[in-house]
């Protein structure tokens, strides 16, 4: 079973439609996805080689219940143990995995759960990633907020009590260049204690600049570590260049960022291999940059505007829970973020086991926070959403739900020092 990602819009010009169909049907007209484009930093690193060697050698069918029991009995989880915990053989051990994961989470994080909210400031995009609502051939309302609008959005969010913000854009270096993002981050510094970004990958110098603007955390999702599959999903734009994306976190750390976040988009390819590679990406980079903070996310495919049928295929909630428990047992020190792509029920359950950070008061659209937060209608246009969310809880509701579970919601534990 596969998702049907290819949707045509009747508003595309004939030339655009022709180009879109050509990209979809003729691989030879796409650029080489493993080759850096001119201007892209190439760094020296063996992290990618290490991750890919482990992933390619991973045969999850060979693990047995005995391997899983052994992994669960150990104090320290090796790569081999982690592979067993991600395998189908571990599925019957989910409750034991959850118990061990809970223990590890509480050892490293106590009973705290961090809260943040994303802020999309622009949804222009130059990539054609077939599963994404922002893709350049998808007909949606596009918008780029002005600095005044950004400040207004931030005020509304800050008034709700939020102290950590994640600034996002579509991937359009032309419409939302680094300078524009940097200016937005400078404003964010005024309203929030912690500023993270989830934007297109940039060079070391750009990360340095963004760090100076107040950013300290960079999130880049690799989407899938299966390069062949990646090639068939990211048909055009800079994002098509897989290795440049892979190195993004390392470049961010070289640029002085305090922390970096990782993920595959589960459901695009073989989720067990993608989960393995995501965690090993963290593992090997952490060994190279032991002072860096690292976190993992676990997004699953969601429906988008104009394509309601997109779904995460074989990655059900049980599988997602297994992955998160395995992540926690293998990497007890990393932050684990569970976004509003998941339901309130799932998020309430998983924060008691493995997750340490959840979003609240989420909009994946552009410029609609006031309306969503206060109900006050605005004359300004808003931009369409990247994907549909599942958990629409406000910050206040999220805060009280977490507290009701006996956990401690935390707005910030961070100080910016440059």
């Amino acid at each position: 079973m596969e998702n049907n990602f290819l949707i045509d819009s009747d508003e595309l010009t004939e030339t655009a439609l022709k180009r879109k169909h050509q990209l979809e049907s003729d691989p030879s007209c796409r650029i080489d996805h493993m080759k850096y484009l001119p201007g892209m930093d190439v760094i020296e690193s063996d992290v990618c080689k290490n991750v890919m060697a482990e992933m390619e050698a991973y045969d999850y069918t060979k693990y047995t219940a005995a391997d899983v029991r052994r992994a669960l009995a150990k104090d320290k989880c090796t790569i081999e143990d982690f592979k067993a915990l991600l395998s189908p053989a571990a599925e019957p051990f989910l409750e034991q995995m959850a118990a061990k994961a809970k223990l590890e989470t509480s050892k490293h994080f106590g009973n705290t759960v961090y809260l943040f909210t994303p802020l999309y400031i622009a949804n222009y995009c130059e990539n054609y990633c077939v599963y994404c609502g922002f893709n350049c051939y998808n007909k949606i309302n596009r918008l780029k907020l002005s600095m005044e609008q950004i400040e207004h959005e931030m005020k509304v969010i800050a008034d709700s009590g939020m102290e950590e913000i994640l600034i996002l854009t579509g991937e359009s270096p032309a419409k939302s260049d680094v300078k524009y993002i940097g200016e937005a981050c400078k404003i964010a510094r005024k309203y929030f204690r912690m500023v993270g970004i989830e934007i297109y990958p940039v060079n070391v110098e750009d990360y340095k600049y963004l760090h100076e603007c107040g950013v300290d955390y960079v999130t880049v999702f690799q989407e899938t570590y299966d390069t062949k599959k990646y090639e068939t999903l990211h048909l055009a734009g800079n994002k098509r260049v897989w290795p440049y994306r892979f190195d993004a976190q390392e470049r961010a750390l070289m640029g002085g960022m305090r922390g970096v976040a990782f993920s595959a988009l589960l459901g695009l390819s073989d989720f067990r291999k993608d989960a393995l590679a995501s965690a090993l990406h963290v593992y090997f980079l952490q060994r190279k940059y032991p002072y860096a903070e690292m976190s993992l996310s676990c997004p699953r495919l969601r429906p988008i505007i104009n394509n309601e049928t997109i779904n995460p295929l074989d990655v059900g909630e049980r599988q997602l829970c297994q992955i998160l428990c395995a992540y926690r047992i293998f990497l007890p020190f990393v932050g684990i973020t569970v976004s509003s792509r998941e339901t309130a029920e799932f998020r309430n359950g998983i924060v008691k086991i493995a997750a340490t950070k959840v979003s609240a008061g989420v909009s994946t659209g552009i410029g609609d926070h006031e309306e969503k937060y206060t109900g006050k209608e605005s004359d300004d246009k808003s931009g369409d959403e990247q994907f549909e969310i599942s958990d629409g809880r406000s910050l206040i509701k999220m805060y009280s739900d977490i507290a009701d579970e006996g956990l401690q919601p935390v707005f910030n534990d961070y100080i910016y020092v440059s």
Partner: protein
Amino acid sequence: MENDKLVIGGKEFNSRFILGSGKYSMKLIEAAVKDAGAEIITLAVRRTNTKDEENILDYIPKNVTLLPNTSGARDAKEAVRIARLARELGCGDFVKIEIMRDSKYLLPDNYETIKATEILAKEGFVVLPYMYPDLNVARELVNVGAAAVMPLASPIGSNKGLATKEFIQILIDEIDLPIIVDAGIGAPSQACEAMEMGAAAIMANTALATAGNLPLMASAFKSAIEAGRNAYLAGLGRVLTRGASASDPLTGFLH
């Protein structure tokens, strides 16, 4: 386990016992090589003698690798001078950095050790720094070109065993170089325990030198180190730990 070699500076060794240099005698060296299987023997450069008599170098069989150490050095500069001298004496490129700025406890000075390691690694030495088990220092030693890291188990000559166990375990887990436990190992059981943890080799001297029957103790160390190594390679079995299952299932929210 025939292929399980200890590799240091590109050189392969079958034995994971290294003879330290504190107390020397002909008998000790003989027992270490014959009964403990040592293929590396440390010698204190300050104990070598350029005159004809009593040169410690004469005691050491030709088929073992010499590991000259810099004992007596109080800072990086002195350690570097001693290492260069060892090379001139024909002791090869291996060198164990020992820098003590403390004559009471003989604890290694990690800061000076990093500096000496950096200089000597650049000069092509295979540098094995003796250190207090500190993760940040170990990482820095890797960065400046060490060939192995040698954390102490307890104060040198104390025979007190793995007093720094937790911290040595962290080095074993985090450092991609052989971790050789050096100093303080007083009994074969302690050597075995360190090897079970994943140490690459054991260095000892006093434990053998002060034993009642030297050859017998040497062979006991050999067996203990091999047993510990095999246990590590085999993967230790399940240890039942506390943490009973919750009364309400944690995964009850999944459909």
